[in-house]
């Protein structure tokens, strides 16, 4: 079979910076979720135990803020990299191989539903599938909203001079809802779409090793395959 030829051919999917940033996001996101939910559900014994393990309220609060700052630094680092990619490497920030949303993503979604209901073939994804794009944009945009509401709650004295005081109440609710969405999304959708689907179960290693096989690209991202390695065929 054709794919066997590429089974052992390794190519790089994520550069070292991206691997590092992903690990950073993993750690800070987990810390943020744990400390945040421990405060939200502070009537529960597990939450009280966790908080006292982290040094009580001041310790947990410090950890939450520091993790948030680290998370935001990671986002900034990524934005800097985007500038570098555009200006120095002359890459394209939009287009079929970027993470920028395309009309094709919507078509892929429809095609995927046809496939889900057994009425067609799976869609031919480009370099990033629409679900991967949602992963990316959820973090990038969600981070902004979490950051803003978090800052509002962290520095209420300052922000209440700019907005009415009850905006801080709103920020509090939004921060929690957004956190539920983020954790609910990551824990179920991201995890199952990357690790649990039968093809890769139990673990997708490419985000840590950065490497993947050509056969895998051919299967998961045939659109990319067609444009990048078309000459190899």
């Amino acid at each position, binding site marked *: 079979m054709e794919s066997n030829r590429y089974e052992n051919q390794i190519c790089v999917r994520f550069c070292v910076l991206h691997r590092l940033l992903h690990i950073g996001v993993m750690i800070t996101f987990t810390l943020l979720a744990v400390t945040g939910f421990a*405060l*939200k559900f*502070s*009537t529960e014994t597990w*939450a*009280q135990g966790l*908080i*006292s393990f982290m040094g*009580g*309220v*001041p310790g947990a609060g410090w950890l939450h803020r520091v993790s948030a700052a680290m998370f935001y630094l990671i986002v900034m680092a990524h934005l800097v990299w985007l500038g570098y990619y555009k200006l120095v490497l002359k890459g394209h920030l939009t287009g079929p191989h970027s993470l920028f949303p395309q009309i094709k993503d919507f078509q892929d979604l429809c095609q*995927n539903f046809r*496939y*889900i209901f*057994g009425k067609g073939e799976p869609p031919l994804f480009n370099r990033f599938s629409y679900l991967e794009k*949602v992963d990316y944009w959820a973090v990038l945009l969600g981070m902004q909203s979490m950051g803003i509401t978090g800052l509002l*709650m962290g520095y*209420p*004295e*300052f922000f*209440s*001079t700019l*907005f*009415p*005081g*009850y905006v*801080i*109440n*709103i920020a*509090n*609710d*939004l921060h929690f*809802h*957004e956190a*539920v*969405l983020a954790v*609910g*999304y990551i824990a*179920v*959708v991201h995890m*199952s*779409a990357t690790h*649990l*689907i*039968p*093809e890769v179960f139990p673990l997708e290693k490419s985000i840590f090793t950065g490497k993947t096989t050509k056969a895998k690209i051919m299967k998961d991202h045939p659109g990319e395959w067609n444009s990048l390695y078309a000459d190899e065929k």
Partner: protein
Amino acid sequence: MNTRTCCKRGLLFIVLLVMGAGSVCARIMPDQSTWFVDMKRFSQAAHTGLSCEACHGTMKEDGRLHPDPERPDFLQSAAKRVYDYARCKKCHAKAYERYLAGEHATAMEKTPQDAIKTYAPTCGDCHSSHYDPAHLSRVEIGKRMTEVCGVCHVAQKESYLENYHGKAAVNLGYDKAAYCTDCHGAHTCKSLKNDKTVALNVCHRCHPKASEDFTEFVIHYDEKGIAEKDDEKNRYVSRIHLVSALSLIFVILMLCAFYSHTFLLMLRKIHEKLRRHDGE
């Protein structure tokens, strides 16, 4: 205990261990307002050094022997209503003065004498003179205070515990966060809703840089706890609830959409894998 109960208890213990489910135990605790004084607890309380007469006077004090069935209010008067709390002043002069200057005493004057259900509290309603222990820490006092105030101010207690202040101070025992009286004043129990400058002074105790707009932050944002005529606060709260409800609907819709997508996709993929497995 016979063998059968032993076995039952043992099994129950295992089940409880496995599931971590607690059982509801009915305990008989003397209520604080009964005729009886639990000497075991009294002996550990702050007032244990005092004799009964020191606070209650002798049994013949008002000229009649104490259990007097002939009195018109015999068995009818509420003990906490008829007690002469001026006796507390003897030792707790400062607290007594502050109470008289406070909101509860003002409300007390307005309350008709026979209105049992709507009465304003006096000393004995918040403090158990027989059982309150002495020398509690700030956190212990704060936790008890939240319970005591919450008996009447239910909505306020709940919203306070939903707020960062309550979570840190009561749930997590952080002694630098504010308890009820840190804002409302011990024994004065002032409402802060009418005067923004008063409220701001209160906020300044912990937030020295706060401006007047800072007081618009709604701590007790449960609708049940807000007076109907307090238009400004009601407007704020309705806006908070509106935005909150919208964002909650958004979150639920997003999660439903993504979860069903993932579930259906997984089903299809597993089905295909099983098919492929068969083909090999």
